[in-house]
């Protein structure tokens, strides 16, 4: 009863007005965030002549795939897409293997130097990548990895965020499970493969998705490490289209942007809970 009367007391008219007013503000903000995406799709699927029409059409009138046709015939967009998948895929797979191994050791084993090594690895996250980029560029040239796939994805694997998440996750694996396997005579490697990995599937989902997106969206390193236009990843290729044109064909540009955005939007919509858990796990326990 007490809480009820309290609830009643708290909703005065002013508070009700404020409730709806602030909700309205939130909707306005959400609109500002989502509208550019709508605008991109509209530009991508409408004839490019409409992209420079004034006043603009706010609703789709003539839907066409013409921009995409132009995109695929006049640029190497399909190849860029494949490059992006190769680069993001390789770095994600390697990261999952390396980070899960290290995460297990840091989360479950008490070895001399554990705290220090972990701290050093994690602190590296603070160092801006641009600083490493110049020596890496020189090294990649020296070892003939410039303009190659390994040159593109290897440095991405060293991002320690995945290791951090894996450690957080694996810490919570019950000690008894590992101990009983040990008593049964299972070796370290066997324990890792048959007990730790199956229990860590959610962590694999989270780290895998965050890494895939992170590498897919990487721009600066992919820009400097590739020379040939056919080696570009999708964001780099599309950005080059925009930068190299004197008069930008916005219809085609938006079709390229949409082509790069759709896989990310799809991953986001399907795996939303993995994103949320990854981001909050990193922050709340950090």
């Amino acid at each position, binding site marked *: 009863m*007490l809480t009820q009367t309290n609830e009643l007391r708290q909703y005065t008219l002013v508070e009700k007005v404020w409730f709806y007013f602030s909700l309205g503000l939130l909707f306005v903000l959400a609109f500002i965030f989502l509208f550019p995406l709508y605008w991109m799709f509209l530009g991508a699927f409408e004839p490019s002549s409409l992209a*420079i029409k004034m006043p603009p059409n706010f609703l789709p009138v003539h839907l066409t795939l013409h921009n995409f046709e132009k995109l695929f015939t006049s640029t190497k967009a399909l190849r860029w897409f494949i490059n992006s998948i190769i680069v993001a895929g390789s770095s994600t797979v390697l990261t999952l293997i390396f980070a899960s191994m290290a995460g297990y050791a840091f989360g479950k084993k008490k070895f001399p130097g554990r705290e220090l090594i972990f701290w050093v690895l994690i602190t590296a996250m603070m160092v*801006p990548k641009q600083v490493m980029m110049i020596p890496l560029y020189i090294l990649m040239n020296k070892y003939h990895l410039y303009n190659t796939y390994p040159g593109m994805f290897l440095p991405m694997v060293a991002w320690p965020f995945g290791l951090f998440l894996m450690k957080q996750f694996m810490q919570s694996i019950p000690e008894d499970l590992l101990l009983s396997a040990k008593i049964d005579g299972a070796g370290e490697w066997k324990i890792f493969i048959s007990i730790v990995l199956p229990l860590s599937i959610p962590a694999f989902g989270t780290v895998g998705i965050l890494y895939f997106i992170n590498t897919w969206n990487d721009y600066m390193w992919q820009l400097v490490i590739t020379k040939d236009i056919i080696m570009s990843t999708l964001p780099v290729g599309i950005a080059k289209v925009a930068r190299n044109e004197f008069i930008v064909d916005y219809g085609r540009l938006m079709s390229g942007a949409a082509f790069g955005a759709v896989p990310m939007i799809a991953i986001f919509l399907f795996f939303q809970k993995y994103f949320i858990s990854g981001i909050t796990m990193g922050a709340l326990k950090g």
Partner: protein
Amino acid sequence: MSRIVRLYKAMKKEKAAYFFILPSVLMFLLFTLYPLILSFFLSFKHANLVSSKWVGLANFVSIFRDNVFILALKNTFLFVVVLVPTIVFLAFFAALKISTLNNSLKTFFRGAFYLPTVLSGVILSLIWLWIFNPAFGLLNYIVKLLGFKPVIWLASKGTIYYLMFVVFTFNFGVPVIIYLASIMNIPSELYEAARIDGASRREIKWKITFPLLKPTTFFLFVTQTIAVFQVWVVVQLLTNGGPAHRTETIVFQIYKTAFWFNQFGRASAMGMVLVVLIVVVTVLQRLYAGEEINY
């Protein structure tokens, strides 16, 4: 001596652990630590892909005499000073509001604010390139509709603030989600107790929620500061640093110096300045936040 033996025994007992961390440590040594050390030495050299020559502090002297680099430093600070508090505080209010809504609205707003974050800065920048277009961009259409003179968005005095807005749209989602999760973590008994004691909503917000979220706020300030210090994609794609170097940033300067002009030593010196700035600002934030961060 016995300590060393003990250490050796402890290490031997857990030798599998070293095997498990080996790949990650190797990646760190090869792709983070080694380049970092090389970059440090490069900053004292004049270097390009084929040659290098030791020049002492010449790079540092020359970048601090370079008006464009000074401007880039100022612009980067402006980005950080305006954008980071705006993002963190707006995210706090937005999350506070979202936390009171029902689940479907929660999902909607979380998705709306987070979606731009998963798209690359490149894609969002290109969309804005079109929206900002002075002749047939959406924004000038609206401006004219409202009876104002059209604005040359990407070549005016205020351009840096328009870029900040674009960066805002792709940095806002993560803080909102993190705040939201932290708010949901606060035990509801705390609120109930406060309510029974007759605390008003405003008092609950500022005397319970906000102080309890201090560690989250600190974390967001630090991570956003580091992120915004590295702003460059919008600059490269929308303005190229212009008009008249008004939107030049440190990272864009590093990029141009290294990969347009092949001055690797000079660019590394700029990189070192960036590292020092980030470390100093992070430590200052830590000191300012004090020891209250431990719960």
